[in-house]
């Protein structure tokens, strides 16, 4: 029986995500009482999204593959790992066998945490459950244990929900979002780093007085805000350094610009297909807690990103990311797909510094160095996950894929290393635990003080 079940699972997985994912999502949607016709339509949409991702991934590898080879040959810069950005990574995660189980267990964890008053956050941002599932998929791929993968996902979900609680008062005050918390892993885990960095900079004379005007930066660096312009500029630069001829340089520029514009749009199609399911779950959670003003609604970081200081800092960091990728020894990833998404990473750091662009920029640099090295280290595992779900790699392409920010997320990497029994990762548990505990206490104290003076 067990053997047969395993055979069925393997057969379904073997169909590849374009067929397998629609089947899984259709079943899940029916379970959550989505209408059959709607469930069917959205399931098919998801499969189509994947077809689109393959097509554009092909354009990316056809252009960037030879370019990175020419780069190492003609300039000695070796950055062979491809940065797909978070959208394809999330698509791959949704197709991983662990994902549907993580959705269910995250809902369960959230309900239990609220019941026992361990959290105030009702995380209705179902789409971002993929962040938890990806942690589980990494652990599952590295340890071959589905159970460990599930435990990893569960721990990550709990930590992120707690982090969302911690920064909620600051989020509500500074971003002007009453009643809201932001359990988006790719932002929340950098809040403690931001608080710590802010405290360190406080102690450095000179530096602690610096400020910059977000509006001026937005005007001067605005070009780095548009994905297609980032792709174009990077492509042209890459072509020049790789010693392409003019035709080659211009073509690489246009093609990378195209990938930056089109690849996320394909993931959007997949996203459209997930909507009815996420809507159904959202409604169940909303119905369960009607009008509870003591609870926070957990949303995507999208509601906070329009802060001028967040945008300005992200614009400043974008060219720096490319310089760091070339300069940092041991880095093998060329930032591209995630290059337009630095605002997501830096938003909670900006919150921790209360909108100080200079401070956030300084704190952002070591974070990006860490992200680059982690994204490099995690690339083989990400590539394995992609292959395990039968993600189609173009014929002849045997390089590695990763993502600068979400592959490079240090928190998820830490969890992965803990589950692999890495000594340093284990030793870091009490160390980081103590530092975060101290930071939580200090932010609470500061908040109380502020209340008194009011």
């Amino acid at each position: 029986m067990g053997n047969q079940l395993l055979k069925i699972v393997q057969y379904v997985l073997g169909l590849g995500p374009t067929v397998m994912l629609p089947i899984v999502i259709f079943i899940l949607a029916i379970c959550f009482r989505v209408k059959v016709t709607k469930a069917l339509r959205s399931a098919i949409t998801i499969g189509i999204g994947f077809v689109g991702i393959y097509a554009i991934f092909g354009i990316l590898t056809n252009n960037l593959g030879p370019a990175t080879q020419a780069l190492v040959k003609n300039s000695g810069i070796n950055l062979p790992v491809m940065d797909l950005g978070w959208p394809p990574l999330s698509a791959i995660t949704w197709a991983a066998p662990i994902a549907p189980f993580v959705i269910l267990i995250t809902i369960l964890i959230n309900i239990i945490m609220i019941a026992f008053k361990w959290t105030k956050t009702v995380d209705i941002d179902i789409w971002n459950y993929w962040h938890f599932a990806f942690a589980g998929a990494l652990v599952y791929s590295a340890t071959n244990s589905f159970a460990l993968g599930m435990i990893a996902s569960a721990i990550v979900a709990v930590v992120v929900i707690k982090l969302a609680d911690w920064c909620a008062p600051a989020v509500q005050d500074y971003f002007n979002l009453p009643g809201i918390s932001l359990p988006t892993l790719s932002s929340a885990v950098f809040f403690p780093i931001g608080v710590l960095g802010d405290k360190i900079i406080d102690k450095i004379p000179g530096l602690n007085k610096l400020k910059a005007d977000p509006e001026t930066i937005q005007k001067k660096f605005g070009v780095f805000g548009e994905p297609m312009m980032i792709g174009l500029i990077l492509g042209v630069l890459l072509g020049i350094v790789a010693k392409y001829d003019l035709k080659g340089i211009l073509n690489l520029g246009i093609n990378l610009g195209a990938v930056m514009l089109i690849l996320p749009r394909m993931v959007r199609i997949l996203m459209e297909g997930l909507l009815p399911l996420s809507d159904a779950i959202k409604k169940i959670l909303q119905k369960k807690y009607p009008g509870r003003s003591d609870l926070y609604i957990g949303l995507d970081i999208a509601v906070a990103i329009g802060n001028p200081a967040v945008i300005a800092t992200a614009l400043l960091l974008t060219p720096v990311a490319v310089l760091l990728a070339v300069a940092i020894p041991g880095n093998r990833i060329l930032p591209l797909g995630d290059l337009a998404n630095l605002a997501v990473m830096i938003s909670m750091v900006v919150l921790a510094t209360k909108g100080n662009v200079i401070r956030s920029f300084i704190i952002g640099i070591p974070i990006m160095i860490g992200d680059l090295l982690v994204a490099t280290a995690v690339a083989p595992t990400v590539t394995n996950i992609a292959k395990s779900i039968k993600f189609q790699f173009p014929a002849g392409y045997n390089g590695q894929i990763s993502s600068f920010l979400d592959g490079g997320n240090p928190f998820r990497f830490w969890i992965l290393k803990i589950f692999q029994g890495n000594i340093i990762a284990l030793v870091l548990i009490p160390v980081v635990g103590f530092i975060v505990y101290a930071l939580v206490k200090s932010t609470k104290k500061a908040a109380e003080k502020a209340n008194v003076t009011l």
Partner: protein
Amino acid sequence: MKKKIIFVCATGIATSTVVAEKVTEYCKEKGINVEYQQCNVASLPTFDGNADLIISTTNVPYKLETKVVNALPIITGFGEEELLDKIVDILKEE
């Protein structure tokens, strides 16, 4: 009549899709034909003046000619109906 809307979120992919689906469906019911695009916040200045309305999930840190509506109620679900009606009113006035 055909109306053009720009939907804005963090990266122009996830949350803006949620809002876009809801708004376009509602507009269709009310007989308004909507054509739309999605983008991230930092791309927004290049779209200014090319649309009838900008609907953003977040604060828009630019001074723009095009009218901007905050879509937060659609994401949280509280005040969703009222906002959708308001959007339809704005589009009909334009």
